[in-house]
């Protein structure tokens, strides 16, 4: 049966193929000379139009959320970015640069200008000002919402050029198409996801492309351009550390494999020195770039490069190889010794700061879990599950090794770079979920090489076969290829059919990839997470807009200088949408302050009251999903509050909240759990509520249990506001008793 369809297919193709060959013959025989220019033009036209379509596709595929909800900022961090951008456009750059924000981290405040990467805000403000200058009366929010898709489109162009640089223009086109719809990238760049990563991936890829270009050409101009690309990356995202470690590693690998060249010397030195000087202009980076442990590799490689150059020169001067060998040994030993000594002294004296916790947790995935609960508590810092690799990469996951094979087969400076980029970023993607994003461009490029090379081989197989039949030896791209083809001549029909089947398979896979990507984008990555959607009983869509309801309530009904205490997740949103002062927010720079809030949430009410009084807290905000079944609420995050609080204040002990290691909220829960502030605030008056038909009152739908403490009395707090679906509950802290 199978054989039959195959042979039939083969027959059909066999009839089609001569027609095609006839056409190409026409080209080659009749008017080859006169059409040559024309084909090139056609190719250019084709390439530009494909690229143009990819550019548009990358933009529009990210607009699901705008169509489905509205033009709004998503999630948590983007609200901070939006708020700062608003400030930048209203007050100007210098005010922004020197902004001391007294509305967050009360009472410590935060020097915003010195603790953020301003690239994103400046980019959006620049787009905004440009549009204003061109008399487009846009609102800054629209600009912010569409910044990420716009930069995703630009990334496709960079991916094209990068692909062209490391392989050929076909691979570039495929890479552009892949990256335009790859879910791993879309997850951080849908419309409304106004976060650093949206711009940073563009900058990252641009820097890499320009650097590879500089290495390939040895041109100062490209190296300079890559230094500026690096500067933009540093200004946009903390992930620049990846660049400043990957590039030295790459250089080191080239040195070790004996691929040292003047081109490399020029490219790296120019890029490092200028990039460093530029990066130090960003206040948040500053002297870290020459002092912190994460940047030391780049500096070491820089010095090593000079040693190499010096050795090269000595080798050129010395004719005696034996003498040179001795000299080499002494020089290398002393250079390494001096470097190690400098590093040791610098670290011991505190001049070189040690690696940060995040960096450690990248190299040792278990580090954060044991030592820094605040890093481990962030969901996007969790180790990646296999399913999310499949979800985010789909067929690219299988094409990636194939691409690596092609890269190794045709090893060059550029392919070594992309291989190293791919392998390191894949490792990091395995350590942290969010770093899938960094791996995505590499995976797309390498897979594109695989797809492009395979399809090219297959199509050329289809074509050259008939050509060899007709002309014996066409002008053929490579003589060796033609000769290898000739040896396969006897199995031609099988090969032809196989090639066609493989081609069809490839198209099937690629179309599957496209549908998968679109489906993922529309289903998983286009929800703003500030507005929740669920399916109702009749299949209709139910929208829970409780967050905004609560924040607008805060904005309208509380005094302007009111201080709101909540878990840090909601800090940015409260300041941006509620316009109220918060105690802690998503910029988790002060662990003690967060631990204080964690301690307050996990203490008994009267102890918590003392803490809240000392922080001048006026309102407490908790997120509660027991009514709607919304599972990422504060009760589910509560153990992290206990851990983080207990990390600083040992009076808080995690076992007090667990029963035999189980975390539960029902009747069997630990007594401390049933009476701590978070439990009380979440479940206050919940015992009276019937949430689900046929269940007792006080049935928590998020955890599927009946709660253990239904009779909750609040002494020092009073309920101020609960949203319509109970997702956000706000309590007012009472003043101290008047007569006591």
């Amino acid at each position, binding site marked *: 049966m199978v054989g039959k369809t195959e042979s039939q297919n083969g027959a059909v193709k066999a009839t089609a193929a001569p027609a095609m060959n006839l056409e190409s013959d026409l080209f080659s025989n009749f008017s080859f000379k006169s059409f040559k220019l024309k084909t090139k033009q056609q190719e250019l036209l084709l390439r530009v139009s494909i690229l143009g379509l990819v550019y548009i596709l990358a933009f529009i595929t990210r607009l699901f959320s705008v169509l489905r909800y509205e033009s709004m900022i998503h999630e948590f961090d983007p609200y901070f970015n939006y708020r700062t951008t608003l400030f930048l456009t209203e007050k100007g750059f210098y005010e922004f*640069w*020197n902004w*001391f924000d007294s509305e967050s981290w009360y009472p*410590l*405040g935060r*020097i915003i200008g010195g603790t953020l990467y301003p690239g994103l805000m400046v980019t959006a403000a620049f787009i905004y000002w440009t549009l204003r200058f061109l008399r487009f009366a846009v609102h800054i929010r629209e600009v912010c919402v569409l910044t990420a898709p716009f930069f995703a489109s630009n990334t496709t162009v960079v991916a094209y050029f990068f692909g062209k640089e490391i392989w050929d223009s076909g691979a570039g086109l495929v890479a552009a198409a892949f990256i335009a719809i790859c879910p791993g990238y879309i997850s951080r760049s849908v419309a409304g996801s106004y976060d650093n990563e949206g711009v940073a991936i563009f900058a990252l890829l641009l820097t890499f492309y320009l650097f590879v270009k500089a290495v390939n050409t040895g041109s100062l101009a490209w190296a300079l351009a890559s230094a500026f690309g690096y500067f933009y990356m540093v200004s946009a995202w903390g992930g620049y550390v990846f660049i400043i470690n990957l590039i030295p590693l790459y250089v080191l690998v080239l040195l070790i494999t004996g691929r040292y060249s003047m081109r490399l010397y020029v490219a790296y030195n120019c890029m490092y020195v200028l990039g460093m000087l530029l990066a130090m202009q960003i206040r948040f980076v500053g002297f870290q770039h020459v002092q912190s442990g994460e940047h030391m590799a780049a500096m070491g490689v820089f010095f090593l490069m000079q040693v190499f150059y010096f050795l090269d020169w000595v080798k050129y001067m010395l004719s005696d190889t034996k003498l040179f060998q001795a000299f080499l040994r002494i020089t290398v030993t002393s250079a390494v010794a001096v470097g190690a000594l400098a590093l040791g002294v610098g670290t011991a004296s505190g001049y070189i700061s040690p690696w940060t916790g995040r960096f450690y947790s990248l190299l040792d995935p278990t580090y954060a879990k044991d030592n820094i609960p605040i890093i481990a508590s962030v969901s996007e810092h969790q180790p990646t599950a296999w399913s999310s690799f499949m979800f985010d990469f789909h067929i690219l996951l299988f094409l990636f090794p194939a691409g690596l094979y092609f890269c190794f087969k045709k090893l060059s400076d550029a392919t070594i770079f992309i291989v190293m980029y791919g392998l390191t970023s894949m490792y990091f993607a395995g350590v942290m979920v969010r770093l899938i994003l960094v791996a995505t461009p590499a995976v797309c490029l390498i897979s594109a090489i695989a797809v492009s090379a395979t399809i090219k081989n297959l199509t050329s197989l289809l074509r050259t076969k008939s050509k060899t039949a007709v002309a014996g030896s066409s002008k053929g791209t490579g003589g060796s290829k033609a000769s290898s083809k000739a040896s396969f001549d006897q199995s031609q029909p099988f090969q032809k059919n196989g090639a066609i089947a493989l081609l069809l398979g490839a198209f099937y896979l690629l179309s599957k990839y496209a549908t998968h990507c679109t489906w993922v984008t529309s289903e998983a990555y286009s929800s703003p997470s500030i507005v929740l959607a669920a399916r109702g009983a009749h299949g209709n869509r139910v929208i829970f807009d409780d967050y905004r309801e609560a924040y607008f309530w805060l904005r309208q009904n509380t005094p302007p*200088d009111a201080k709101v205490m909540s878990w840090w997740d909601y800090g940015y949103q409260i300041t941006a949408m509620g316009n109220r002062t918060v105690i802690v927010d998503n910029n988790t720079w002060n662990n003690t302050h967060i631990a204080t809030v964690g301690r307050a949430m996990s203490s008994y009410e009267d102890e918590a009251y003392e803490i809240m009084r000392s922080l001048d807290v006026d309102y407490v905000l908790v997120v509660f999903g027991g009514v709607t079944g919304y599972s990422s609420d504060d009760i589910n995050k509560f153990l992290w509050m206990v851990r983080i609080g207990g990390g600083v204040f040992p009076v808080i002990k995690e076992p007090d909240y667990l029963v035999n290691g189980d975390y539960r909220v029902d009747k069997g829960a630990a007594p401390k759990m049933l009476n701590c502030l978070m439990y009380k605030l979440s479940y206050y008056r919940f015992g009276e509520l019937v949430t689900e038909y046929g269940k007792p009152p006080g049935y928590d739908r998020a955890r599927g249990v009946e709660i253990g403490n239904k009779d909750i009395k609040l002494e020092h707090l009073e309920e101020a506001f609960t949203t319509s679906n109970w997702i956000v509950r706000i309590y007012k802290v009472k003043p101290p008793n008047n*007569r006591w």
Partner: protein
Amino acid sequence: MAKLLLYLTLATSLIPLFSVAFSPENPTDRRVLVLVDDFAIKSSHSLYFGSLTSRGFQLEFKLADDPNIGLQRYGQYLYDALVLFCPSVERFGGSIDVASIVDFVDSGHDLIVAADSNASDLIREVATECGVDFDEDPAAMVIDHINYAVSNFDGDHTLIASDDFIKADAPVLFQGIGHSLNPANSLVLKVLSASSSAYSANPKSKLSNPPSLTGSAISLVSVVQARNNARILITGSLSMFSNRFFRSGVQKAGSSIKHEKSGNEQFLTEISKWVFHERGHLKAVNVRHHKVGESDEPAIYRINDDLEYSVEIYEWSGTSWEPYVSDDVQVQFYMMSPYVLKTLSTDQKGHYSAEFKVPDVYGVFQFKVEYQRLGYTSLSLSKQIPVRPYRHNEYERFLPAAYPYYGSAFSMMAGFFIFTIVHLYSK
């Protein structure tokens, strides 16, 4: 537009309403509701009431179980102070109950509670809300076999002559139930306490158990100044306000001095002046701060700024605001803990000021004045002000220590320039 006008007229018409009760301009109470068990008290305690009316109070006498009494109407309090001379009332008439009395106090009004032996549960409950517990034995009275007042009609030593208070001209006569202070309450104070030989028991019956309240733990008269400066007076003796006690002479047992007149009148007049805010009422106005040499209040300070903080404090003399003079008013520059604590200097005319340097720490600070002195209303002022670090262009531009580096940078530039020229054109 019409709506706006309506709001405006409403707002303007409400202003006088607000200013009637306990206005900062005139803190003294004006309208006093006196609840009595029996109108006979009006005449038997007329000296005390007379002293109040002569000081300008409008007293309104009502029976405690009058069904028409109420403390507020349409959300407005009708009285500035409440006097409960009804120790035996079991249930108030009208809308008054314990909760409404507590609300009355919590919204800044004053209260005098006089109980007696056989005080009702209701009165006990009011007292408990104010941090005072009367002896649980309803028939108990304070008995003192040593410091009793010599009299010809009292044989069981329940008439106590107490001089345990400041500046006693003559002992104060007290006859009634004793109370103790709730240790959890930090605001209640003993004004007149029993002597160490006193105890609380039923004088009619034999003492079978040791008395629960003894010695100077027994308070005879207590006051509370709530956090909102409402003042409460609680006493276990209604008769100490009576004309009989006011007029009677007093001779303490074991003492040969016989005072012509008891200290009750002076004591109760002065203490009701305090309770009704004729004394010891402070106000702070014109809280200002600015940089030294400027006069406008900035929205934010910079670290190491020199600033000046000033406040004016006045004391109510009963008729007018007089400058308050003291040398112990302190200001804190506070962020979780005081970074600066400085005593304000005064010009003797009520103006207090201090100059200090903002600490080298940025954050959201507060100017705090926490002035709590016995007998005075507590002043707690706090004003929030952020302190920012230096701007990028506020640092020193050229550091002397860095001259070698400037020198090396410029010499490098010059050297490079020369080198380029030599390299390019020396052939």
